[in-house]
């Protein structure tokens, strides 16, 4: 044991791990940040699970229009525990989206996006978009009949964007229409480009969480004033703050572990999503539909009037994104208690 401690001491002296990690672990957080604050870390745990299961799946999956479907069949039916692993990747994605939603709802309800945490919120909105894009591109990588026709549907929506539409259409298809490069383009997005963006933005998000501190639960009659907030927050931490580890982080560790366990259990019980028929565009008896988190939007498209349809397809999602992204720019001070403020 002493030898191990000495070895650690030698390594730590050279790498300076303790000097970086210790202050992070011991930094003070508000004492009342309890169970409502565990959803952000649960989302991060789900993301980490997506990374490791995705890396494992990529050792077999071949992103080729000829082979992708067959390799997925192999993963699901023949590879040792491949069925379970694919299920974990699927339920991990669902959980990540679900907990991201709950986390954002908590931040919104407690108005934690107000000063000085505007950047936390805005980076979170970018992560929301990245997560949805990851979910959709992941569905396309199944490369079954559903995926092939889903690309058609996505392209037709992108094509309605004014001016940029035809370019987006060709970029999504990687050509004039579905072809050999379409799948590899989506694979590139799903495995390299979007994860790289997510790693960078998650890094920024976590840095801001530490730099600005975890928001204290809102108290009615205690509005945020950018001129005095930081002094008040520092005073609160000085008086009542508790160290992040273990006083606050134990809940994150416990809840995160439960979430991972739930994903593993769901994957074991229900398995991965069923692969539809082969990705052959000449098999016309198909009923393409997105995964559950976009199903509501897909259904609404049946109801929107002709004249408003393009507006609905483009302006509605863009409007939601812009409203969320710029929310703290316009409403960064005032009451945080949900019953004492208007919607924002």
């Amino acid at each position: 044991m002493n030898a191990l401690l000495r070895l650690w001491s030698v390594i730590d002296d050279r790498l300076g791990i303790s000097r970086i990690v210790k202050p992070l672990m011991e930094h003070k957080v508000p004492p009342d940040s309890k169970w409502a604050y565990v959803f952000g870390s649960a989302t991060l745990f789900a993301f980490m699970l997506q990374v490791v299961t995705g890396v494992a799946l990529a050792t077999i999956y071949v992103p080729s229009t000829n082979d992708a479907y067959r390799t997925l069949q192999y993963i699901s039916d023949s590879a040792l525990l491949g069925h379970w692993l694919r299920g974990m990747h699927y339920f991990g994605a669902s959980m990540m989206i679900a907990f991201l939603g709950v986390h954002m709802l908590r931040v919104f309800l407690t108005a934690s996006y107000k000063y000085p945490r505007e950047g936390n919120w805005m980076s979170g909105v970018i992560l929301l978009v990245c997560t949805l894009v990851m979910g959709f591109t992941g569905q396309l990588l199944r490369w079954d009949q559903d995926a092939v026709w889903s690309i058609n549907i996505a392209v037709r929506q992108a094509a309605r964007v004014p001016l940029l539409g035809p370019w987006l259409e060709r970029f999504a298809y990687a050509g004039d229409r579905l072809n050999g490069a379409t799948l590899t383009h989506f694979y590139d997005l799903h495995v390299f480009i979007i994860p790289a963006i997510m790693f960078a933005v998650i890094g920024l998000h976590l840095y801001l969480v530490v730099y600005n501190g975890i928001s204290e639960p809102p108290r009615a009659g205690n509005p945020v004033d950018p001129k005095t907030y930081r002094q008040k927050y520092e005073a609160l931490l000085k008086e009542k703050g508790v160290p992040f580890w273990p006083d606050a982080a134990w809940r994150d560790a416990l809840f995160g572990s439960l979430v991972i366990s739930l994903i593993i259990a769901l994957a074991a019980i229900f398995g991965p999503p069923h692969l539809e028929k082969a990705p052959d565009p000449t098999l016309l008896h198909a009923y393409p539909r997105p995964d559950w988190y976009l199903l509501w939007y897909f259904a609404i498209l049946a109801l929107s009037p002709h004249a408003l349809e393009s507006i609905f397809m483009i302006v509605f999602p863009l409007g939601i994104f812009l409203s969320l992204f710029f929310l703290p720019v316009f409403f960064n001070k005032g009451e945080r208690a949900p019953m004492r403020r208007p919607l924002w």
Partner: protein
Amino acid sequence: MSDEQNSIEKQNQDETPRPVEGMVDEIRRKFLILISLGAGAFATTAVTVPLLSFLLAPLFKRMPPVWRPVGKLEDFKIGDTVEVSFLDSSPLIWGGSAAKCAAWLRRDNQSSFTAFSVDCTHLGCPVRWEPQAEMFFCPCHGGVYYKNGDVAAGPPPDPLQQYPVRVNDKIVEVQWKVLPVVADCGCGPAGPSSNPRAMG
């Protein structure tokens, strides 16, 4: 020369070059900054040109129209609408099934055919021909088309698009070509598109 004079001279020698050295350092630093930024800009451009060209090439590469045989003339009964499949003109040899296309082909009379695109004009789901109803149905959002491809019900904004068909030496051929995803666009890399309502 007295010791006093030597001392004054030495003091002068120590002091005079300093501003010049400072200026040289300043110029040297500016030069180093310039050469660092210049070399970095050159290297970045040298990487960006082939990288962007490679990535953006699909935006400009066009797939030419091509006539594809879909069956012998005698295989098609007058009045029947059947699914035919053929390959597009994709130059990517690894495309596999992604290069396959389908159309609903109807023999109108002895020598005339109509080939409907299988893509619903609403969001591109595959439409199905129902022979008893003599209509095309889209499974996604309930789009319905008449026998001639006109919209009967649901959200589709335009009639089904059509491919040109010809009979060449008793072989029926469909011309695969890029059909506009959004009708009446006339913009962007795909160039002006014809109004599908006017087609066929």
